[in-house]
């Protein structure tokens, strides 16, 4: 039977993260955002709460939860702020997850405890200046130097979240490692610890939104790491990151849902407080109907990401549902952010108002972890049509 209720522990987690977001994040995040500064104290506290270890087993320092738990935390954080939410999302589902899923026992023991505690952040270097979702266009190369037993990496990665903080410990990088027997380029994933000679982190980007999150371009020039830093099987890099991105879409969908809901929260409050022509603006049907539509989108968003997460947790195929969730929720987030700003009028254009942050933070949701066009392509493919 379909059950809309969360298990008790998931509901308690939701309440806890909600409380944290409202009491701890909300009062200070605007300032970090304005200064384009990374909120280290918040990340440290999120680490203590175990958020970075949510979906990982206790033997690696995790919390023994699941992907649903991660989504719940992301939704409640993004309801208040997306920069902290994306920092968590990227750290867990892009930074630590590849190591957990594909790493050797030794690699897991070496990296996961610190990643799970939030003392260290991991990043995922996939996107390149000439290619995002088209991973076949990867230009970064890694050559195995048989003499020294090292990978020699050359190339550039861009838009990499969590890659340049003081606590970034590693970046997993996809690179062409040769040509397979059928002539296709072989892509593998390699762990590059921060500080490795030849690995350079460019200064942070000037972004439209997510301004309290950490994003950099990375370059690798004859960067050498030991052969055992290969993550999983050589030549499986493409399949690996497709798996990572499918899951990541659910996480982004949860985050987008939070933003869509945050727009409702702020707008309902404002529509009740702001008076025009002798009554609260919410008493006007034009505003009330906007709010109703916004709530509908937030509600539908929640249903769709939780459905995809539920399939994942139960070990069922979820690719199609994840793409639908990512597409629907990100568009809902953009729509809600636009309407929330409209309801707030001139104040909505002022950065000190949360909805202005929501507006700036929403657009990237239709782009990151597969653009809306890529999601439509995937969904169409699932129907057996399209390219």
């Amino acid at each position, binding site marked *: 039977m379909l059950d809309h209720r969360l298990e008790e522990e998931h509901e308690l987690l939701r309440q806890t993260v909600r409380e944290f977001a409202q009491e701890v994040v909300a009062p200070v995040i605007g300032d970090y955002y304005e200064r384009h500064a990374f909120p280290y104290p918040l990340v440290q506290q999120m680490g203590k709460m175990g958020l970075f270890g*949510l979906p990982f087993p*206790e033997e690696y320092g995790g*919390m023994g939860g699941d992907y649903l738990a991660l989504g719940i935390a992301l939704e409640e954080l993004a309801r208040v702020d997306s920069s902290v939410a994306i920092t968590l999302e990227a750290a867990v589902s892009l930074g630590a997850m590849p190591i957990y899923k594909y790493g050797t026992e030794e690699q897991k023991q070496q990296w996961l405890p610190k990643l799970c505690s939030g003392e260290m952040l991991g990043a995922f270097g996939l996107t390149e200046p000439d290619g995002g979702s088209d991973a076949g266009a990867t230009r970064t190369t890694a050559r195995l130097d048989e003499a020294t037993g090292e990978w020699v990496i050359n190339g550039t990665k861009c838009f990499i979240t969590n890659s340049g903080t003081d606590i970034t410990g590693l970046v997993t990088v996809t690179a062409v490692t040769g040509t397979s027997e059928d002539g296709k380029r072989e892509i593998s994933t390699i762990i590059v610890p921060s500080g490795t000679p030849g690995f350079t982190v460019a200064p942070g980007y000037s972004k439209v939104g997510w301004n309290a999150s950490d994003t950099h371009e990375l370059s690798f020039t004859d960067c050498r790491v030991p052969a055992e830093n290969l993550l999983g099987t050589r030549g499986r890099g493409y399949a690996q990151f497709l798996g990572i991105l499918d899951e990541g879409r659910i996480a982004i969908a949860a985050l987008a849902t939070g933003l869509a809901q945050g727009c409702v929260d702020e707008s309902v409050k404002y529509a009740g407080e702001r008076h025009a022509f002798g009554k609260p603006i919410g008493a006007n049907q034009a505003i009330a109907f906007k709010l109703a539509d916004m709530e509908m989108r937030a509600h539908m968003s929640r249903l769709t990401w939780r459905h995809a997460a539920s399939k994942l947790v139960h070990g069922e195929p979820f690719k199609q549902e994840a793409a639908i969730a990512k597409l629907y929720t990100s568009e809902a987030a953009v729509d809600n952010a636009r309407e929330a700003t409209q309801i707030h009028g001139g104040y909505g254009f002022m950065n000190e108002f949360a909805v202005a942050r929501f507006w700036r933070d929403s657009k990237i949701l239709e782009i990151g972890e597969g653009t809306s066009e890529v999601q439509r392509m995937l969904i169409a493919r699932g129907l057996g049509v399209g390219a």
Partner: protein
Amino acid sequence: MKIVVCVKYVPDATADRGFNEDGTTDRESVDSLLSELDEYAIEQALQIVESGVEAEITYLTVGPDDATDALRKALAMGGDNAVHVNDDDIQGTDALGTSLILAKAIEANGYDLVICGMASTDGGMGVVPAMLAERLGVPQVTYLDEVKVEGGVVKGRREGDTATEQVEASLPAVISVTDRTGEARFPSFKGIMAARKKPLESKDLDDLGIDSDEVGLSAAWSTVDAATARPARTKGEVVTDEGEGGVQLATFLAAKKFI
């Protein structure tokens, strides 16, 4: 040693709270939660154990069925077990009656140190810790801003309007802690999961040997006769500075006795 932390399940202080017709707290129309001021008591208990004192932490509450939510939250933060005193005859009990129930439950559990919050966020009387100490016949050290347990003694700092006191008491003792002791931790997901498996015992008045005549609304020494809703906030006074703004502000503050 044994630490008992008294916690209360209260109507959400941020919601629109009210009373029933008989003057008792209306618990139906608003959500309830673990009193925020009691979270400081929980945090101090956990810190005492983390400082190296070997102790078992028991949470104790007196309240309706869903007051277990408060205990589960406390257990998610840490600690070992919980006791829930729940009996239909308790409804309407005042602070004096509550202190009787708590004292009996604490004696039944065994204790070296009892930690309370400085007051509840609903009744807000702040008298239970003192009443409890009296009933248990042990020293009380209330309104502590800093707590330490060392060699059978509980020590603390109490900030007053005119002086800062360093106070201590030999154990067993009852203390209450303020909201200046340091922010309480958020439970981790592991803590939330673990809390489900920690023992939570339910007791009624019979179990504690309390006669139902001793508690409840009919036995209460204090009752609510009437309650008036807080008046809506009025518009503040706007001072327009035409060269005299500073003086006007000072006059206003002086009139309100702020300066």
